[in-house]
């Protein structure tokens, strides 16, 4: 009898959905790098949240906690608020260039080409 092969669930997590993927950047390589970067960014956030959980469990004075305690941890409103604030800062940091491009769009008067300013400084 044929053995039933167990599902390779890790391979299945990343299955491509039916339908062609849109690429937005002129060069698909840029899109690829962005997607990889965001996946890594997510994992950094996960590591940080785990560290935060461990610190908070330690602060409760009991160094004798297990991985199951980490999995069971649920923040109270105060801890959740601090963690959310960290996340907001983190995402603001990662996506800073996008935010600055928007700022440039919103205030073109503050976005004058530096070479043009150099010319002007040569004149005044």
């Amino acid at each position, binding site marked *: 009898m044929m053995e039933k092969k167990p*599902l390779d669930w890790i391979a299945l997590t990343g*299955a491509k959905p*039916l339908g062609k993927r849109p690429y937005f950047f002129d060069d698909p390589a840029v899109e690829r790098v962005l997607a990889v970067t965001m996946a890594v960014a997510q994992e950094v956030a996960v590591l940080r949240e785990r560290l935060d959980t461990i610190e908070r469990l330690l602060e409760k004075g009991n160094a004798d906690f297990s991985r199951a305690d980490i999995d069971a941890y649920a923040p109270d409103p105060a801890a959740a608020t601090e963690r*959310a604030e960290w996340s907001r800062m983190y995402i603001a940091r990662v996506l800073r260039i*996008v935010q600055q*491009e928007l700022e440039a769009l*919103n205030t073109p008067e503050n976005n004058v080409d530096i070479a043009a300013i150099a010319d002007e400084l040569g004149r005044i």
Partner: protein
Amino acid sequence: MSAWPTPPPYSLVGKHGVSPDFTHDERARFNFLAQLNTHLAAQVVPGNARAYETRVKPAFEAEHGRAPVDRHEVRKAMLRDSYFQTWSALRRSSMELRQQNGREVVLRQLDKLNAKAAALNHQSPQLKLNPDVAIPAYIRKVDFHCMPGGYTTELAADDVSAAANYDIGVFATTGGGLGCFNDGAGLAVAQWMRSRYPDFNPKRILDMGTGAGHTVTAIAQAFPDSEIISVDVAAPMLRFAHARAKSLGVNNITFMQANAENVPLPDADFDVVLTTIFLHETSNLAIRRIMAETHRLLKPGGLSFHLEQPQYAGLPLFEQFMRDWDALYNNEPFWTRMHEMDIEQLMADAGFQRDKMFQDKAEGILDETIFGKPKSDVEDFGRKAAWHLFGVHK
């Protein structure tokens, strides 16, 4: 004010009998995505309008000597803009992360999860599966919202994985916008029915395209004396929806595998026929057949309505274009056509009378202790929990 941050932590998501187990890091992934999606909607999205007004539209006008005439022209021009490209690539990658995260949680415990559902579903007369129901082409051709395998794929016997993945990711995609049980739409519909028809206690209600049962279960809780039939073509969705409802103590819904285009139930069988967040995932011919079924199944004097995002007619072109994003870039291909249809004509073609039609609005209802007071804040073009209701009395 609520003591919880916005979006609230994933640990507050409601548990039911088919909730998968979560590790710490799996919750953290969804926390990250909820924050990222909230950031994209509030901080990044507004720049698209700015880019359009300040450079894309002027460049289009310089080139063509006129403004764009429809959302397709707006899109062609915006697709060349680097700000729109960046936001779109970020949003697409966030959707892909969401799918992989959800599938990780569900697939690593697939057998256990399916067994939980099977135990709740065992020999229930309220779960009527029918493997002979054919899967319509429009859900075989594309995986909606980039959900690999769509609604119907079965990886094992008694599979509920498609629905379980759908269920656990809503909170991350919407930043909690549908509430802890993803039932903000159901609560909104129930409140809308109660306030519009205070003395109406429908005996029989039909819900078509039930999905994971988020909306119908909340409606069933609000109308405990009504007998509700929920149809869907996808067995994994129905198994999950039935098990979830049972575990939440909801017993007045029968879940039935059937195509909404051709429901095997008698004429004039229902006081209410409704769909929620469903019609945009069908097709041009299917939506007409579904409307015809709505008319056939409804009792004279009965009420039918459909909950969707607003129709495009009358919206500014730029907003129409933004609302099309999910249609083209998050695998919702009928969304774009559906939202430009003349829905009154659609209902009239199905045999309904124009003077009995109505259109209305409904906003998602969320638990204030967690989500705070409702605020009409950021527009996420198609994802906001603010819907358009259209319907008719027979």
